[in-house]
């Protein structure tokens, strides 16, 4: 059992980078737009299913579909923020009311996206895995797609972090998250920033969805589980904290591998929530949360 430990931890970290990237999108959407997007996993599912369609029907390589799906889902997120959530915010009497209503609207979106997908793709599993050759790394064997996905996830995670912390646009986003009214007075086009952040969140979910379709069979049901993971990771890392969610993602990845490898795969979700609930009680703002 003990000899399996290093392998489980390394695999856990690799999974975790992907969870972290997914959670980063959710935390951006919550931190900047105050929308706790319960439909986040559905964007991932949509991207995975589109990957299948594009590669099966049009013969586009699953490695390149991001050029089509990425802008598409970014645009969808952008549109949702500029139409739906903007209107919702204008009508809400106070920020807490907006957060509650946005959560419910996101739940409505969850139904809309997942059932539009179910109507168009049905409920069966699609297998579209690529790059399944095994390679040996750190004494354990991995599939090539797992390694590539991990590298991409880390690269994008670091890029988003640098973008937010070093660039002018990134600073505008952080200012808007902190205090939209003041940011607006300082000349930041806050509506644009909100829409961009929501779109970026959707884009990150899309990238994760495409990478998942390389590795695992996909179906129109995969969305909700991933939302659950992202939600746990985001709360663990501190709602709205981008680096926090990446670190928490890696932690959750390790935990899930350890639980399924050493104990019982069926108990992964209960363990996630046990961690989440204890954390909410002890430190409600998460590991790296501010407020």
């Amino acid at each position, binding site marked *: 059992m003990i000899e399996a430990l290093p392998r489980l931890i390394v695999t856990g970290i690799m999974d975790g980078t992907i969870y972290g990237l997914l959670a980063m999108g959710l935390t951006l959407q919550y931190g900047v737009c105050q929308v706790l997007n319960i439909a986040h996993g559905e964007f991932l599912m949509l991207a995975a299913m589109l990957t299948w369609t594009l590669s099966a029907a049009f013969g586009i390589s699953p490695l390149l579909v991001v050029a089509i799906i990425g802008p598409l889902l970014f645009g969808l997120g952008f549109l949702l923020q500029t139409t739906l959530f903007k209107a919702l915010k204008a009508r809400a009497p106070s920020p807490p009311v907006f957060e509650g209503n946005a959560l419910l609207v996101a739940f409505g*979106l969850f139904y809309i996206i997942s059932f539009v997908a179910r109507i168009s793709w049905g409920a069966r599993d699609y297998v579209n895995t690529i790059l399944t050759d095994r390679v040996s790394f750190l004494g354990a064997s991995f599939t090539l797609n797992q390694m590539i996905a991990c590298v991409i996830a880390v690269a994008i995670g670091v890029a988003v972090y640098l973008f937010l912390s070093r660039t002018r646009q990134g600073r505008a986003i952080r200012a808007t998250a902190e205090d939209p009214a003041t940011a607006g007075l300082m000349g930041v086009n806050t509506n644009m920033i909100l829409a961009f952040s929501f779109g970026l969140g959707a884009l990150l979910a899309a990238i994760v969805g495409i990478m998942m379709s390389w590795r695992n069979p996909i179906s129109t049901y995969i969305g909700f589980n991933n939302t659950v993971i992202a939600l746990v990771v985001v709360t663990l890392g501190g709602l709205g904290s981008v680096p926090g969610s990446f670190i928490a993602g890696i932690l959750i990845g390790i935990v899930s591998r350890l639980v399924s490898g050493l104990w019982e795969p069926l108990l992964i979700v209960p363990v996630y929530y046990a961690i989440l609930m204890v954390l909410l009680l002890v430190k409600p703002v998460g590991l790296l949360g501010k407020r």
Partner: protein
Amino acid sequence: MNIASFASAHKKLVTAGFILLVLIFLATLPLYGNDYYINLLTTILMYTILAVSWAMFSGATGYMSLATAAFFGVGIMAMAFLYGTLPFPVIVVIGGVLASALAFLIGLVTLRLKGIYFAIFTFGFVMFISQTAYYTDVNILGNAWGHELPLMDPGMLHYAMLGLTVMTLLTIYFIRRSRYGLALLSIGGSEEAAEHMGINTTMTKIVLFTISSVFMGAAGAIYAPALIHVEARIAFNVFNSFVPILMAIFGGMGQLYGPVVGAAVFGYLDRTLRVELQEYFMLAFGIILVAVILFLPNGIVGLLPTLQERLRRLTARLRKGGETEQHANT
């Protein structure tokens, strides 16, 4: 005296008469309705209980509880495990008590969490209890195929649900009118201000959260036989946390009868459309949820005063128009 002026003069009398009529209809239904309609109305009553008790706490305070499915599921599982060992009403009470004990514990530890964290916690709790109960039931207790409940007389279930609905509505009616109801509203307005006025906000929240869950648990216990096949993942379906919210918001939470209207409309649609048009129904559910929150923040019931006002203005303008015409003639 015409009907309109009679109605406006004796508003209370008309309301009481209307409620009486609905009750008589519901109470006599098993005498002439077939099983399909009885089951339909039992479902609507079940949703009414969930929506009204959800709105009583969450609607007033703004603490959005997504744990409805957990309390409802506890009632269902209580019936699944205890059926046959104890009399039916006793199990219903046990279901309610277990649910409220759970709510008390959740309230004790979480009601200091603010806003969105409370929603996340309660949402997580449903996922937690659903998976844990499923695992325990299947792998530890060995009920791999779930629990079969024997077919029960729909009329009997209907009366049980009707009785519980009346109890729920009466309790909540009086709570809304009591100091506790006002305290809840003031917490929703501004918790800090409520605290300064001398309201023990934590106590109030915990007590009323617990009370609201009693009815959810009891409703689950009564509803369980209608499911026939009970499994932890069905009993704790997270859908049951969101449906009552949609109903309450659709109906409007300003009035006690708002959630009742919402539950009647959606309970009916749920039963009639969900089976035939499963996927399209769920899609429509999503679209309606978004549209209602966006365009009807006060629900259908909230539309009534606006409509009345428009109607009044319209008739006033018509009358005025008629008068000027008369002047022109003379």
